[in-house]
């Protein structure tokens, strides 16, 4: 062949990816921001699974956490406010070979992007969706978000938020065709890592709400949970997210919950048994839209030309 040496071999060099292969620009989040922990977890996961960086796409919206793709040395799509889910769905639609992660915040997902959130859950495409929920708008300087607690003082509600928050877990579990709904905490790296790993392994849309600290605008938001870990209900099950011994030692309130039990998951989502941490629901049988959007990918040029010729014949005079 022209341009190739006689002894050329199509042998790919062995690749050993290390953490640095997934690290890009230095993150510019505030010190103490929960985003750092999630970034570290995802980089470690990508390294542990040896995901080829060129096959990973991180899609985000707008907000503090949505700067995430800039800090991963993979393909990234820093999109529009509220719209990462339609973008990610489009990315995956004809590229089943890609690993697509979505990074979104409570304003991005639960306010301006609500319609997309609901329909993405319904479509159940093979995406790993990480909701960074710090209960506040950070980037735009402390406005209330849909998950800001009742009475919390913000720049848009100086007298306190007058209406109670949305519970993203309850909403997601209320959408037909949900297939993976989990919650974790940014300040427990072991559980955070295990949760993202399970989410990535799941076939279908894995929705992970990460309770996240904002040291700047919501400094005391999770103090109670950090001081009294019994407020967290750790969900454990053979089909759930593995609970490490270190996690078990830290959180005394461990509950058995079968993720196949939707009713039980919905009850836990209310928080009445403690703030749930783990897998609330999983249904691997939920139909996946990405299997529909990938149809026809194998068509050859000859197939396409023949198909078009047949179509033109239908309009022949």
């Amino acid at each position: 062949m022209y341009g190739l040496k006689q002894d050329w071999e199509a042998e790919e060099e062995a690749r050993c990816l290390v953490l640095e292969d997934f690290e890009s620009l230095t993150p510019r989040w505030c010190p103490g921001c929960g985003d750092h922990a999630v970034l570290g977890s995802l980089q470690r996961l990508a390294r542990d699974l040896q995901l080829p960086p060129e096959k990973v796409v991180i899609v985000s919206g707008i907000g503090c956490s949505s700067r995430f793709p800039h800090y991963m040395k993979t393909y990234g799509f820093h999109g529009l406010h509220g719209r990462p889910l339609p973008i990610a769905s489009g990315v995956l639609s004809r590229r089943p070979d890609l690993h697509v992660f979505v990074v979104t915040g409570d304003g991005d997902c639960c306010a301006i992007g609500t319609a997309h959130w609901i329909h993405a859950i319904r479509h159940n495409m093979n995406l790993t969706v990480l909701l960074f929920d710090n209960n506040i708008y950070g980037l735009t300087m402390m406005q209330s978000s849909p998950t800001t607690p009742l009475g919390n003082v913000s720049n848009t509600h100086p007298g306190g938020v007058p209406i109670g928050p949305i519970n993203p877990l309850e909403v997601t579990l209320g959408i037909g065709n949900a297939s993976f709904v989990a919650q974790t905490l940014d300040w427990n790296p072991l559980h955070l890592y295990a949760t993202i790993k399970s989410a990535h392994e799941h076939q279908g849309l894995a929705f992970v709400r990460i309770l996240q600290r904002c040291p700047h605008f919501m400094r005391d938001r999770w103090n109670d949970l950090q001081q009294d870990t019994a407020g967290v209900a750790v969900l454990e099950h053979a089909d759930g997210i593995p609970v490490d011994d270190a996690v078990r030692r830290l959180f005394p309130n461990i509950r058995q919950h079968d993720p196949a039990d939707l009713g039980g998951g919905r009850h836990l989502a209310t928080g009445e048994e403690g703030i749930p941490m783990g897998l609330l629901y999983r249904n691997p049988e939920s139909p996946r839209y990405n299997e529909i959007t990938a149809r026809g990918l194998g068509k050859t040029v000859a197939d396409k030309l023949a198909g078009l010729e047949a179509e033109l014949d239908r309009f022949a005079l």
Partner: protein
Amino acid sequence: MGEASQSTAAKPAQPDVQDVAEHIVEIISDSGEGAQTAGQLFGTVSARMGNGVWTVEIIPAEIEPPYRSRAGASGNRIRIATDAVSNMGEAADVVVAFNEQVPYSRIDVGGLRPGTILFLESMWAQSPDELIRKAYAEALADFRHRGYEVVEVPMNDECLKVVEDPKRGKNIWILGLLCALYERDAAIVQMLIERKLGRKGKAIVESNMALFNAGYKWAEQNAPWRFRVAVKPSDVDRVVMNGNEALALGIMAAGIEVCSMYPITPATSVSHYLAARFAKVGGIVHQAEDEIAAIGFAIGASYAGKTAVTVTSGPGLALKSEFIGFATMAEIPLVIIDVQRGGPSTGLPTRVEQGDLLAALFGQPGDTPNIVMAPTTIEECFHFVITARKLAETFRMPVILLSDASLATAQQPFPRPSAREEWLAPPVDTSPWQQDVAPYAWDPETGLSQRPIPGQRGGEYVVTGLAHDEESHVAYESKVNQQGLKMRRRKLATLARSLKPPTVYGDTEGEILVVGWGSTRGAIEEAVDRVRGHGHKVSSLTLHFLSPLEPGLKEIFRHFNKVMTIEICYSDPPEAGEGRTYAQLAFLLRAQTLVDVDCWSCVPGVPLPPRVIEAAIRERLPDHEQIPEVDLENVPCTV
């Protein structure tokens, strides 16, 4: 149209045979009575025999409007001629109406004139309902008063002789009537009916042919006219389809695999067609939860290497504007088809307008250069999608295709294209990326750069709508921002350099140059021919590229005493003075060329008939002669 011998359906010994260069036929019924099918078949048989044909659908705004109502008229207008036809023309020569109310919706838009032959279903004269009998009698008297040649036709009774339920099949009986009147080839009709209904079984085909033959025979015995529109059989294979079908086929021919849409009139039928047929070439239609998600999905697919199309109309274009700006900023190829309807806001969903031009060019906040193109014929609807995808990928930017409600449903034959491999999108490039090439390594001369696609090792980068440098790193420095805007804008200048100056229709110098774009082209050229027929030096020019504008306009304009646009959008008359609102293309041309471009435009919701355009041009001539029966203030009331 000659003098008809009589207006009743008595048996003429010798029909009045007229040779005509063209004729316009309308078939109108209540929604669901099949007038559209009959009209399309009549158009197809005429095209197949070698006539020029332009068919437009007459569509009510509601799905099932009250029956026997003026607003409920549904059907087809078919303009046939010896030569090619490029527009819907003016008042009809022959109208077939299933009841006496539906003609009024056509009268409202100037669809009939004194002398129009009106074949009217007469069953209503015997209705058991006194109100219906009265309404029929009143309308009949009114039609005669208006000077129409009314022929009362007992369609129902005649159909009953052939089938048990005339509700289903009356349209084919009428097709028979028309085919006798125009001496159409019954064998072609038989072939078309077999093609259309063959799957439903032999009995259905036979009963339809029986209806057709009965209608044909009735007209032979009772209709006192025959119209001969000479045919010029074509020696090339041709296809006939409407503009939305042509767009859909263009999408398939372009190798686009993803059409992401949200339902909106009058664009949706593009995706209906694709939903049924796209799988043949491996494509998918994604119906998104809203217009924003539709374009977001398309941009995602495009980013991942599969340039997608999103199909919409005005209100949808408005919703998509933030994402269009994103695709411009992040330099992601994308094809956006806007089948324009009346605006602003919800406007006239089923009607034609060219009001989205400036929104397509300037609808996004910030400086967002995009390519904007407009097909002017059904054939161009097909070919422009293929060009649009290539331009989108080469120039790494969104291409907006502006069609409209007129092209959407109009049918016109054109040479059958043959599928070509070079039209198809290349496969996604997954070869390793050259490490030293930045994702926005803009060529300073052209603004062009190469785009890494996910899967290309070494090309990993992050697209962002934030200001960014060549590496796609977020950058707020003044110099970087200036550079990005310059490079994105430069791409349009590069494209403009590759375009040819537009061709002038007619002489390249004269009194008036009429400039138009989109679906008005055929009617403008016909009007120009007529004005030239009166001895005036008038020419026209049609723009296909609106952004960048085609080059050489100023030089072309220089050779005419006056330049004016004809458009379907709102403008003030010249008397409005300094604060005058110009039609959108005129606004653009004035800004771009500094030539004092005049305009005439209006927003009747229907395509502009050539006669109205002719009147508008003649009004602008130095010692102008008005066409007295055309009221330019009140288009389209041309009767």
